[in-house]
């Protein structure tokens, strides 16, 4: 098999929740949550293990009994722990709730292949329920440092910070920020800023992006009309503070400096429908993935606003002779723009995630349950590395 060929894995259910298993540092693991309303079929969390050398996918299936999964996020401290946002349905109402789960450690992995119904069940650690606000949960964020066990859950108009016990047994609501404005706008998504001691959270509602300070519980900045239409997703540049990416229904991906919110730094408009997800590569932040309901995943190069704007070696090789510097310049002619377009999906791609282990690997998930694992093209990889 050719090295660059994508690996495709089909789930039996529709799915829109995908995350990398953040705490796992050796194997390439992704977590996928399924969406099935059918009462007969239990929803599942698939732990996808990708064997890098043989290009083989192994999976572990865990049952998620509470309902269909809309969003999933893995704890950065304990690889067994994850949080999901799920839809709890009854005949007359559907509620979005969030819970923290623990994956069972000792199970027979052979069973899961044959009979999904017999798969081990996720152990419920705690539900994130609060009397203060029981509206629909949008997403759950883990403290980005990986040392703290704080969790943030985002509801229609609350940002709630929970203090999770080390074992994860209980979660205590430590603080909450209420968002009130004219017309009762609802949050759609949020991202925890990994810089500045993790004291900031950025949220999106309709076409605006808002930054919040967790200490003062105040809004610190706002980008009005960040997108022509609904903002779908946000992501912080992990290596360069103040830099934020956003995407939305106007088919665009925009990059912001949150200190100058009047206009975006760069606008990408390569998708032909809504952009649902934008993700920075954590190792080389010039690589940005976007996924869209035009069933494409696009790998973009945002070299000019990355933390390595002039190529990787600039800092290391300062003393080297001019000839080499010219070399560097030549390489840094690598331009902003699309690196490659991945068209393996046939339905809308709602989620995309970089591997936390291999910087050149990522997974994307389309609504029809197709998970595709792809790599950054070799040429680009060498261009960045060399």
């Amino acid at each position, binding site marked *: 098999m050719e090295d660059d060929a994508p690996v495709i894995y089909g789930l039996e259910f529709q799915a829109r929740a995908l995350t990398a298993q953040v705490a796992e540092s050796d194997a390439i693991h992704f977590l996928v949550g399924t969406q099935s*309303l059918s009462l007969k079929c239990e929803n599942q969390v698939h732990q996808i293990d990708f064997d890098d050398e043989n290009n083989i996918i192994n999976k572990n299936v865990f049952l998620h009994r509470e309902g269909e999964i809309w969003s999933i996020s893995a704890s950065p401290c304990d690889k067994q722990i994850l949080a999901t946002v799920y839809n709890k349905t009854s005949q007359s109402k559907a509620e979005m709730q969030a819970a923290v789960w623990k994956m069972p450690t000792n199970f027979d992995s052979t069973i899961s292949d044959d009979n999904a119904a017999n798969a081990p069940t996720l152990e419920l650690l705690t539900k994130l329920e609060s009397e203060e606000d029981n509206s629909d949960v949008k997403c759950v964020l883990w403290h980005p440092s990986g040392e703290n066990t704080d969790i943030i859950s985002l509801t229609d108009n609350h940002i709630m910070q929970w203090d999770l016990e080390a074992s994860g047994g209980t979660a205590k609501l430590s603080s909450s920020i209420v968002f009130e404005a004219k017309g009762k706008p609802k949050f759609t998504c949020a991202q925890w800023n990994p810089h500045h001691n993790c004291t900031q959270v950025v949220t999106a509602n309709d076409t605006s992006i808002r930054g919040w300070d967790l200490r003062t519980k105040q809004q610190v900045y706002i980008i009005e009309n960040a997108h022509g239409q609904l903002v779908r997703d946000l992501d912080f540049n992990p290596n360069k503070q103040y830099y934020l990416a956003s995407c939305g229904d106007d088919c665009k991906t925009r990059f912001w400096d949150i200190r100058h919110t009047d206009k975006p730094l760069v606008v990408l408009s390569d998708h032909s429908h809504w952009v649902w997800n934008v993700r920075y590569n954590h190792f080389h932040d010039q690589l940005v993935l976007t996924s869209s*309901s035009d069933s494409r995943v696009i790998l973009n190069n945002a070299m000019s606003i990355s933390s390595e704007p002039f190529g990787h070696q600039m800092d290391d090789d300062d003393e080297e002779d001019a000839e080499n510097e010219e070399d560097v310049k030549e390489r840094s002619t690598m331009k902003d723009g699309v690196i490659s377009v991945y068209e393996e999906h*046939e339905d809308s791609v709602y989620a995309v995630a970089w591997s936390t282990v291999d910087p050149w690997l990522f997974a994307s998930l389309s609504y029809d349950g197709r998970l595709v694992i792809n790599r950054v093209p070799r040429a680009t990889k060498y261009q960045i590395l060399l």
Partner: protein
Amino acid sequence: MLKMYYGISQDAADVAELTSTPCDLNGVNFEPDTYLGKLLKERSLTELMDKESEMVRDIKALDSDMQTLVYENYNKFISATDTIRKMKNDFKKMEDEMDHLSTNMAAITEFSGRISTTLQDRRQQITKLSGVHTLLKKLQFLFELPTRLKKCIDMEAYSQAVRYYTKARKVLLQYEHIASFQRIQYDCNVIVQQLRGKLREQFHDKESGTKQLAECVDLLLQLDEPAEDLCEEFLSHARQKLDIDLAELEKQVRLQSGEQVLPSGDAQSATDAYLQTPMDVLEFVDCGCNNFLSNMCLVIASYNDMFLNRLQQEDLDVIAMSKLVQFVNALTEKYFHFVQQRIQQETETGDNTILVRALDRFHRRLQAMNKLLPGTDFSSAGTDIVSKAARDRVNHYLQTLKQHFSDCLTDIRQHLAAPRLLGKDGNSSCNLAELLHTFSSSLLDQVKSVLANLQAFIASDITFAMKPYFRGQFCSQDVREGLVVAFIRHIAVVADEFCETAREKGIAAPALLLIMSRLCVNLEESTISYVLTLVDEQFMIDDTTRGTMSSQLCGELKDAAQKLLNCYVRVQGLMISQMLRKSVETRDWLNTIEPRNVRAVMKRVVEDVTCIDGEVGRLYEEGVRRDRSSDSTKRSTSRPATRSNWSFTPSTIDNSLMSNIQKLFSERIEIFSTVEFSKVSVLTGIIKISLKTFLECVRLRTFGRYGLQQIQVDAHYLQLYLWRFVSDENLVHFLLDEIVGSALHRCLDPVTMENSVIDLICERG
């Protein structure tokens, strides 16, 4: 007969020699025997007899001829001998006479020598006396000189005084050592000094005319005044006059620019007040030409006369020349400056002819001046001004065109806004074509009139128009590139801006986008090439290869049109999808009642699409539809096969498999793709965007049984009405199937509605 013989032998001796046969009696090769033989053989007896008698006759005639000739020659010879003898006698007599003459001449010479020796002494005396007389006369002149000079000065006959003085000066200088002469010289010098003073006074007098000045300078030069100083003084004097002219010009410029010229005193009369009104440009240039330039010419001419043509020293000549050039350059620079300012102020759109005539006059005068003063190059500076004026004009027209364009746009905006206020009954769309037509024709008219105006610059009676360095630049660079091409580019740029602003904020009315796009298409298809050809013809531009090609412009405009149309599709698509999104998001699909009606939103969508269809249909052609099935009119009853997919299969695996298989056979749909310039393509784009939004929104919701059924009804309703707008109805079917399929997936209690009931509801709605 002899003549005959000779004649032949002389004229055609060669021929006779060659051609004569032995039988030819007159030939050279005549052989009597052969001839006789031949005669005997060939002739009869009587003929022979005749021949014989003829021959005898010939012989006799020849004999007598010969005798006459000999006689005549003899006579002539004798008379010649007589004549020679007579001549000998005459010569002898003449020799004697010549000898006599020579002796006489010798006698005469002797006499004359004697006479001259006797007269020698007298002559010397006379010469001496006459010398003394002239000397005395000169002395008298010298003694009288001071009084004469005084008299001359009193009579203001300066030139005569100078003439006297110059005559006497040398002598006086020579005999300086004699006391009396010294005295005279002193007197003279005093008077001359006085004269000089007077002359200078006259020289400095402002009132004295140029001719007078010239005279003064002439005299002063004769009085050995330093030429350099005189040059300078002359020039500074001339400058004063010219400065007045320039000041007048400057005042005009200021007046034109609206500055209040400070009244120099209260005594200013009504005429001054009249002068306060600015002249028009032709008058201005005329004034400049008549006053400044003609004075300048006069100055140059007199200067040439005075200083340049007479100074013997080459180096002085050079200095004088350089002074003049410097002077003229400084002044003309100022003059040019004013003219340029004045011409720049000429910005009203009015007729060009006056401006052009003014420029022409200006140019001509400059050329005349150029001839006068060879060392300078005013005409190039002048041409610079002219071409700058022309360029300014072109730029001005470009601004006007742009202004006109934006005015048109505002007009259209208002037109579009007005009926919209009255009501959305479709009135707004019916005049789109009309608006477009007036818009484009007014643009074209404007361009044409501007071109016609600009043609004044290259009219055949204008001198500068004939200069290749002006003409080439003006026609191809200014008019073609600077005006027409720039204007077309401007349209494209405005179009681009429209797209940007529309995408960012959605300000631009969609209909305006549509009109603009159609305008660009029109321009691209016909107008550009027409206008460019018009320009090339009117301005006789031969070398069009250097300029921007029309194909290039067409490409730019086509891009702009495409962008605008795409933008239109997006804006309209977004409006409809916004409606759909709100309608899906705000409803509680779990607890809805059994569908009785098509939702009002769907009717609204169909209405809007119909409205857009009407709008687009007025401006764009129908376009091509793909394989429209013949039964599409009876849409409601057809397509049971695909419909069966909707029936719920309990296995989700099967279901996703089914949809996957279905997708395998259908092409990937580009949602926000570019559209073609046709109604169908535009509508397809809009509907695609709307339905895709519908699909994505449905996927985010959870449905109850009746929610699903409502979606079924809505989708069917859309299907009933939307197929007719799109190029490929399967596209609509596919997207609607996806919507219903997704709703089915998201349904807690998936029970579908009977097709017949759906039909019934839709027909009722």
